[in-house]
């Protein structure tokens, strides 16, 4: 059975004999649950090179010339140190190799983030394979053909036809480093300092997220197709359809989202029935919540919408659908605490002992998709929130969490 996992890497084994390749394949099957696959070096994302083989040094040099910039893992019986290359000593510790692969994957995500002409992992692709079944994962192969289908009929979501295009993506987990682009790096504020409190706020109305929200509202209330964007790229929203076609690069979307929108920089266009949703054929699909979540994170960068009290309790209506959203550090912990009872944003950061910016980002993103708000009930302000009691198996559960993160 083929598995498609979070790690998901195409790996080339360079300078290895058949037995070593076989051992590596078994490692991928056992420790990576088949999420990594051995492929020909031409189609690989990373390469593992055995430096103890015949002419291996030469192989390494040739490989670096042929595939500049490709992440490399070097295996050797000796202690090696090479700039920009992960070196592992043989015999290999499976956990070290796994950690190295994880590191590579993260590096690739960060690099991808900064590349000018990238497509975003989070922007969704269509899939035709069966989720939740034991069927082979066909998503990679199915992606292109599905996009073709959606071009012909991008809103198959007719009520009589329940099987629809999908906006599925693998969950995307942002680690501390890569999450800075979304939640910033601002230090904690002093709530007694009015300037610092003001600096921790932003006005969503000035940002692309509010334009997007307006466009979604028009599409829904007027039941018509709407396009939002500019000459560089646009996003198409179909009336009554929760799926959005994205025809702009990730970089453009981010550039539009992180700074206040200048006059005329973004246009919202109501389309008549004959007009194509997007001018470009290149597009990907995303759910409205995933797009709002992302643009709100970019705009807020660890701040809260203006007018949000940092000291009054806020509520969380329901858990966000996390596997379909960007998962930034501590987001699950914040949700788990806030779903129990209303807390103030400063209180959450204090109770969980985490940076305030993570809590502020959580509030901004969940507020954008309508899941959070100010708790208005008198009872919410009557008592201090209950103390979070440690679970009787706190240590065990923490170790399990660490294990899940490491895999």
């Amino acid at each position, binding site marked *: 059975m083929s598995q498609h996992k979070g790690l998901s890497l195409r790996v080339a084994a360079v300078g290895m004999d058949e037995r070593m390749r076989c051992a590596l394949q078994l490692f991928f099957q056992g420790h990576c649950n088949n999420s990594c696959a051995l492929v020909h070096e031409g189609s690989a994302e990373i390469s593992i090179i055995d430096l103890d083989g015949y002419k291996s040094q030469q192989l390494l040099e040739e490989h670096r010339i042929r595939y500049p910039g490709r992440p490399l893992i070097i295996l050797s019986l000796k202690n090696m140190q090479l700039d920009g290359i992960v070196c592992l000593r043989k015999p290999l510790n499976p956990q070290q190799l796994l950690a190295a692969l994880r590191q590579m994957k993260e590096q690739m995500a960060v690099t991808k983030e900064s590349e000018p002409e990238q497509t975003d992992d989070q922007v969704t692709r269509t899939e035709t394979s069966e989720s939740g079944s034991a069927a082979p994962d066909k998503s990679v192969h199915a992606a292109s053909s599905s996009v073709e289908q959606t071009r012909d009929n991008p809103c198959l979501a007719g009520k009589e036809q329940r099987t629809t295009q999908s906006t599925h993506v693998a969950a995307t987990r942002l680690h501390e480093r890569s999450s800075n682009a979304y939640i910033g790096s601002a230090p904690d504020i002093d709530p007694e300092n009015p300037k610092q409190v003001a600096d921790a706020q932003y006005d969503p109305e000035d940002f692309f997220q509010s334009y997007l929200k307006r466009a979604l509202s028009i599409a829904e209330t007027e039941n018509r197709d709407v396009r939002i964007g500019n000459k560089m790229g646009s996003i198409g929203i179909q009336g009554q359809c929760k799926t959005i076609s994205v025809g702009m690069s990730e970089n453009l979307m981010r550039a539009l989202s992180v700074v206040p929108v200048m006059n005329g920089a973004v246009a919202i266009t109501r389309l008549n029935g004959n007009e194509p949703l997007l001018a470009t054929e290149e597009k990907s699909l995303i759910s409205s919540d995933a797009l709002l979540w992302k643009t709100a994170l970019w705009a807020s960068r660890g701040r809260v919408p203006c007018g949000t009290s940092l000291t009054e309790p806020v509520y969380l209506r329901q858990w966000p659908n996390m596997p379909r959203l960007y998962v930034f550090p501590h987001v*699950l912990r914040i949700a788990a605490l806030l779903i*129990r009872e209303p807390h103030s944003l400063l209180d959450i950061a204090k109770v969980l002992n985490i940076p305030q910016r993570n809590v502020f980002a959580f509030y901004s993103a969940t507020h954008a998709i309508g899941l959070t708000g100010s708790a208005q009930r008198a009872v919410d302000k009557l008592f201090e929130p209950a103390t979070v009691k440690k679970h009787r198996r706190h240590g065990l559960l*923490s170790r399990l969490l660490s294990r899940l993160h490491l895999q």
Partner: protein
Amino acid sequence: MSNHKIIFTGPVGAGKTTAIASISDIAPLRTDEAASDMTKNHKPETTVALDYGLINLTGGERIHLYGTPGQERFDFMWDILTEGGIGLVLLLNNSRPDPFQDMHFFLKAFKSFIDQATVAIGITRTDETDSPTVADYHLQLQSEAYKLPIFEVDARRREDVSLLVEALLYSLDPGLVA
């Protein structure tokens, strides 16, 4: 039997076997057999006893992952299986005729365990059938005052299943630190 265990349950075809395989350190032990009853309408093979997977922790501790058989005639095993468990992962097949009924059935069947532990719900096969939505499931639970993590998951994706299990653990103790 060690008490460190997480139980995966749900109706036939919800992806319990696959979800366990996604996060298990070992090749899961399966007891699939050719379906001979109405189950065969959903899939040719089904779990007739248990699925079993394992997560090894540092220090030699182990978390056992058990998948219940999807067919209700095996429900006599459920009480035994859940005894001392950490929590319940309920997977629901969105393409079934009435997934809400499935949800209520399993929440009721495991109520005593859920009351002392907790549950996280994963909705599978949403790429086949986009209705009901996750929001609809939340609405269904509103009257029961449950505020559970309900996620769309692809049981084949380790990251999806991992997030669901993490939400289960944080629901037990938001103070956990990985």
